[in-house]
């Protein structure tokens, strides 16, 4: 047996593409921070390719090393540059990142704005996705479910609160970018603030959940049993710790 240290393989990876249109060192950093803050969970740990394909500003202002640092400071993980004019390549390489050839007018880069990042959901899910508006959403109607949520069903309220008038069964899952309210027994899973809103909460009439989560921090039923079990209660995030409180 000869132990092989590695094998080389071709592979396709999914990355977020940061399509650079122009670059002003000051505004770039603040714009980037704003964008990441809208959906920190989306950008955390995901690879980013900085694309120069559609760059239309002044190259003189770009210091690529600073650009990469700004991305990292904002919580992104740049892995490569793509496209741009030939004479830039050596400057790009000096950042230590890879350079990928331009893909021409590659159309298969989906526009990845924060609100479009809908988690994979089953067919049964009725999402409230209408046309996603780019501007800040001022008010979005809550999604209201009048019938029990059954085992195997999943409902997601995008950019909104989810209100369930009766029970959420074991094996069912309810998610919302905002709060989750269950005016019956919560026996399945409930996740509030799924895209990073740490002020979101889960409210229920009787806490019997398999799992509750706020902003990605979760707690399982074994732990829940020791707090407010079968009581009207709510779940919130305080200093990144889940807190269960009686209503």
């Amino acid at each position: 047996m000869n132990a092989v240290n590695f094998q080389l393989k071709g592979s396709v990876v999914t990355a977020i593409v940061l399509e650079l249109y122009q670059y002003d060192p000051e505004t770039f950093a603040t714009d980037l921070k704003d964008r990441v803050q809208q959906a920190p969970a989306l950008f955390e740990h995901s690879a980013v390719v900085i694309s120069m394909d559609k760059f239309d500003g002044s190259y003189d202002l770009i210091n690529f090393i600073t650009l990469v640092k700004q991305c990292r400071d904002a919580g992104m993980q740049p892995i490569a540059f793509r496209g741009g004019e030939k004479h830039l390549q050596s400057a790009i390489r000096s950042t230590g990142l890879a350079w990928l050839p331009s893909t021409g007018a590659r159309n298969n880069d989906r526009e990845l704005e924060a609100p479009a990042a809908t988690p994979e959901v089953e067919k049964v899910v009725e999402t409230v996705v209408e046309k996603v508006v780019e501007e800040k959403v001022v008010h979005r109607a809550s999604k209201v479910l009048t019938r029990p949520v059954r085992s195997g069903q999943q409902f997601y309220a995008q950019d909104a609160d989810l209100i369930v008038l009766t029970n959420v069964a074991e094996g069912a899952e309810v998610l919302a970018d905002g709060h989750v309210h269950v005016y019956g027994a919560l026996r399945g899973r409930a996740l509030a603030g799924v895209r990073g809103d740490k002020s979101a909460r889960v409210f229920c009439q009787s806490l019997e959940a398999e799992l509750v989560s706020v902003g990605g921090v979760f707690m399982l039923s074994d732990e829940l049993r020791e707090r407010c079990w079968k009581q009207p209660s709510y779940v919130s995030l305080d200093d990144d710790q889940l807190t269960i409180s009686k209503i």
Partner: protein
Amino acid sequence: MAKIIVVTSGKGGVGKTTSSASIGTGLASRGFKTVIIDFDVGLRNLDLIMGCERRVVYDFVNVINTEASLNQALIRDKRIPTLSILPASQTRDKEALTREGVQNVLDQLSKTFDYIVCDSPAGIERGAQMALYFADIAIVVTNPEVSSVRDSDRILGILQSKSRRAEKGEIIEEHLLLTRYNPQRVAIGEMLSVEDVKDILAIPLLGVIPESEAVLKASNQGTPVIHDQESTSGMAYDDAVRRLLGEDIPHRFVDITRKNFFKRLIGA
């Protein structure tokens, strides 16, 4: 237009075929033209419980594939003239059921029958989905134990998302039929109670069928247990049919009765 009833459960062996046979019989004996269809292709069973296994020539799949006409495949019940059975095929698998094929057969049956009772196979796959897709009314058969209740809940979710009515934004009439109920075992906490199950599933209770030896005896004889009006399960099925037809009657055989208690005292 016939009413299409699916008898379904998710979990296997909870009493779907037993219930389809008795409820179909109960409806037919009240004068409604009724047909019971065995959707359990590959695991034919209904014909045995109805006692017509030796008269099966053509089956449901033959009709779907237009290898036989409906009239050739339908079996008339020996006891009740308004009752027919459409048996499943034992030699095919569930892939033989196509949505168009099933719809065709149901459309034809709808013209002459008042009730079409669909005996669903276990599971949540193709066979079960085909059986429930066209339903107007669902009878969810559940045993008083946690896994059966969970599967029933799952099936209710599928009824609400993958049925024709759901697709049209209409609601399926849902009924809970709690079978193999044993009040003694509920009392000592070995089984879930009627209230426990109602609380979890939150749908109206059509009936509680007690666990009884009469059921096994009836299926061995090929006579649906509803014919045995001496037995508690036979009576409970008859009550369930009456409720299905809109009567409001109290549930029997749910508690350990005083009578049982005295019977035990005097050793009867």
